[in-house]
């Protein structure tokens, strides 16, 4: 982050703005830098449509084939319109699940890249079961018999982000956020004033550093720049090592570990009164 951190009274909201920064790298950039020419995009949910807010396919991580699924916001106005600003419809989550099940069949690890302000809140999305689509992903991902790793590369907006983040490990970029509600939404509901978003951002404790403190994520990673080939190389190695570690586990060990990972959240904070 910039040096303004030291003078800004609200570093949490700075992180929100950094996570939304339109000039930062998006999912397709990560795919390009990590998988290069090996990437083959796969489309469609086989039910309704192909949701362009979700970009997914196969790529080689060194010698290991990987299923990669990203939420793509778009890098310019035209792309952003095309990608619906990274707000997926149910068919996007269903495409993701289809490809995760395919990965399970071939025992191929899954890498999810999350960058979304949330699942699309619109008429069509509701008509086609946005809630059901997200719920199904949560349930199926928890039992997926292949390694899953999720990296938040910008905004992690509520259920729309979680639908790709039921993983063995969740990592966040140093300037990314992950929250149950946007600070604007929270401020307008609680204080009837969306201008109080900075206070809400602080109260929600939504930065990578906060989440690491809660034990909700495993790792904070440095923000790579496009020209930073060495940084991408070390990210690739880190991802590969994590996949290799989890590929060595039995299906039972892998899914038991994933369940335990989420099972403990909130359990330790809710001890019975003596």
């Amino acid at each position, binding site marked *: 982050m910039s040096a303004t951190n030291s003078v800004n009274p609200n570093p949490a909201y700075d992180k929100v703005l950094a996570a939304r920064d339109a000039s930062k790298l998006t999912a397709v950039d990560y795919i390009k830098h990590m998988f290069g020419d090996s990437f083959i995009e796969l489309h469609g949910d086989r039910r309704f449509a192909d949701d362009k807010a979700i970009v997914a396919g196969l790529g080689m991580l060194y010698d290991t084939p990987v299923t990669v699924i990203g939420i793509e916001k778009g890098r310019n106005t035209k792309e952003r319109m095309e990608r619906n600003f990274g707000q997926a419809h149910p068919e996007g989550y269903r495409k993701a699940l289809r490809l995760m099940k395919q990965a399970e069949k071939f025992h191929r690890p899954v890498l999810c890249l999350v960058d979304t302000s949330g699942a699309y809140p619109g008429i069509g*999305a509701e008509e086609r079961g946005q*809630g059901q689509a997200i719920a199904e992903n949560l349930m199926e991902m928890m039992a997926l018999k292949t390694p899953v790793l999720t990296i938040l590369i910008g905004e992690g907006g509520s*259920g729309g982000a979680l639908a790709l983040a039921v993983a063995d490990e969740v990592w966040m970029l140093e300037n990314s956020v992950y929250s149950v509600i946007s600070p604007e939404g929270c401020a307008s509901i609680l204080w009837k004033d969306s201008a109080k978003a900075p206070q809400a951002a602080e109260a929600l404790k939504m930065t990578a550093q906060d989440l690491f403190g809660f034990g909700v994520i495993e790792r904070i990673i440095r923000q790579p720049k496009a020209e930073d080939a060495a940084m991408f190389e070390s990210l690739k190695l880190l991802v590969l090592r994590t996949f290799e570690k989890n590929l060595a586990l039995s299906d039972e060990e892998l899914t038991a570990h994933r369940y335990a990972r989420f099972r403990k959240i909130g359990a330790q904070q809710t001890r019975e009164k003596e």
Partner: protein
Amino acid sequence: MDFFAFVKPKNELENSAEKQQNVPFVPEAMWVKCPKCNALLLTTDMEENLHVCTHCNHHFRMSAKQRIALLADKETFREHDADLTSSNLLDFPGYDEKLEKAGKKANESVRCGECKIDGVRSVLCVMDADFMMGSMGTVTGEKITRAFEYATDNGLPIVVCTVSGGARMQEGILSLMQMAKTSGAVKRHSDAGLLYITVLTDPTTGGVTASFAMEGDIILAEPNALVAFAGPRVIEQTMRQKLPKDFQTSEFVLQKGFIDAVVSRVALKSTISKLLKMHGYGEE
């Protein structure tokens, strides 16, 4: 007096001069106005009719206590984890006060336990709108997860009645994680070959819709309940789209194919009981 018959649903009290004289002496708490048809209902009549309007079939919200009494056989409900209480994990401004206020109305946002439903041993979870609009915090998630784990360990079917404004934002990311945690527990129960029946009641929205509410083997809903992921106000405000008539009602989601049946409250227990028995769960 006849004129009233056109503007208001028939209320027998208005047709009786003798009874009408009594009206001023009836304490206000004994009356409730139906929000749908505006009929004035005697509280005792409404309670006798399972909190359903006797004029227009509007289903009033029920507290968890009332719904447990509706579904569980008399004196069979044994509550689990009633001692789990929410606390202000993030030091969120104003949350302590909200919890204190909510605590006066209900114990928690969900009550879970074991009971018999027409003699069939079952786990029953009932959410409570009286506690912060049934919003899902860590305690909600923990209680529901424990209920599913108990059902899985004991080979029991589970019935969950939902009512929720969504995830509880005062618990931030920890609240969001409860969606994954509960879904994992549902999956394990499902993989053990056990039956999960969901009953969606008004309103079921947000993080609860996007997790265990939509994960039942059989999903029932009460008539005219709001069933949504993004609530109607959110959609109207953020998308500036005009919403179709009856959008996001039980009947709407039934027509769109996302629930199995709309069941009137009067038939709810018998429907659940039939379903339990059809899945091989017997009386003990």
